[in-house]
């Protein structure tokens, strides 16, 4: 748009402009073309996909990691508490060895808290990126280009998409039922 206006001005006024003014208007025209190209590139990025699909997908996956590790950690702790109790029924070196091993498991289980906090930070960062992308789109007023690919991001050839989120996943009994349905 800017480039077109400048070109029109240059065409009608070329005889009345100094060399400096012509150069300046040429620079403005080039700037206009750069902005137009940037808008096209942003549209090609499919920013609505980033906001509507990619970032929510990533945050859901991270939430699922926290949930799975929490469940696993509680199972480990439960077994550990049983060992702790069993350690009180023996004496001597065995008791000390058991106690030491149990203590080390308790200590190691604190990983769940640390990883949970780190993942929360990553989720916060992703949400900040989402907000910035949204701001850029609003500022440029870029319409999205037509979608060319399927909605789901394809997995690399030969690979599965990894574990599903619990809300989308089938458990073993669902799988067994499905297999049984084939007769």
């Amino acid at each position, binding site marked *: 748009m800017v480039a077109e206006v400048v070109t029109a001005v240059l065409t009608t006024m070329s005889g009345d402009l100094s060399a400096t003014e012509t150069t300046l208007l040429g620079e403005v025209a080039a700037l206009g073309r750069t902005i137009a190209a940037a808008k096209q590139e942003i549209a090609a990025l499919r920013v609505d996909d980033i906001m509507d699909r990619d970032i929510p997908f990533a945050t859901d996956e991270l939430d699922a990691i926290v949930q799975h590790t929490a469940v696993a950690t509680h199972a480990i702790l439960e077994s*550990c508490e049983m060992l702790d109790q069993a350690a009180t029924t023996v004496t001597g070196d065995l008791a000390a060895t058991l106690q030491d091993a149990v*203590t080390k498991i308790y*200590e190691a289980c604190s990983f769940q808290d640390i990883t949970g906090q780190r993942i929360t930070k990553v989720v916060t960062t992703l949400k900040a990126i989402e907000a910035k992308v949204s701001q850029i789109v609003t500022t440029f007023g870029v319409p999205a280009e037509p979608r060319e690919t399927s909605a789901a991001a394809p997995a690399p050839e030969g690979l599965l998409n990894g574990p599903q989120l619990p809300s989308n996943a089938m458990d073993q009994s669902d799988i067994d039922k499905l297999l049984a349905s084939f007769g």
Partner: protein
Amino acid sequence: MAIDKSMNVLIVDDYKTMLRIIRNLLKQIEFSNVEEASDGAEALSKLRTGNFGLVISDWNMAPMTGLQLLQEVRADAKLKNVPFIMITAESKTENVVAAKQAGVSNYIVKPFNAETLKGKIEMVLGHA
């Protein structure tokens, strides 16, 4: 000075896993009267109605953080002398300084081991 291990200890953390780990570690060093709170507000309520000889609190909690809990404890005439150990993943200098200025008795950085917990408790209760 011998430490009275029958005292009531309040542990505060919004992660159930950490509460469970700390409780078990305390049990191993023979502290058996351990109560739990999942945030600062619940902890303050328990502290005001109970009789605790030690508080071990996480920092990152909502709506009341461990630092705010510490400030409330130190501003309370009945609680101001209760030993208070902060356990947190935040090991930045400014965090440690803020906790010290608020009157923390000692500070443990996650991840920690049983030996560190035991050592800090002995240090804090030895000076109480």
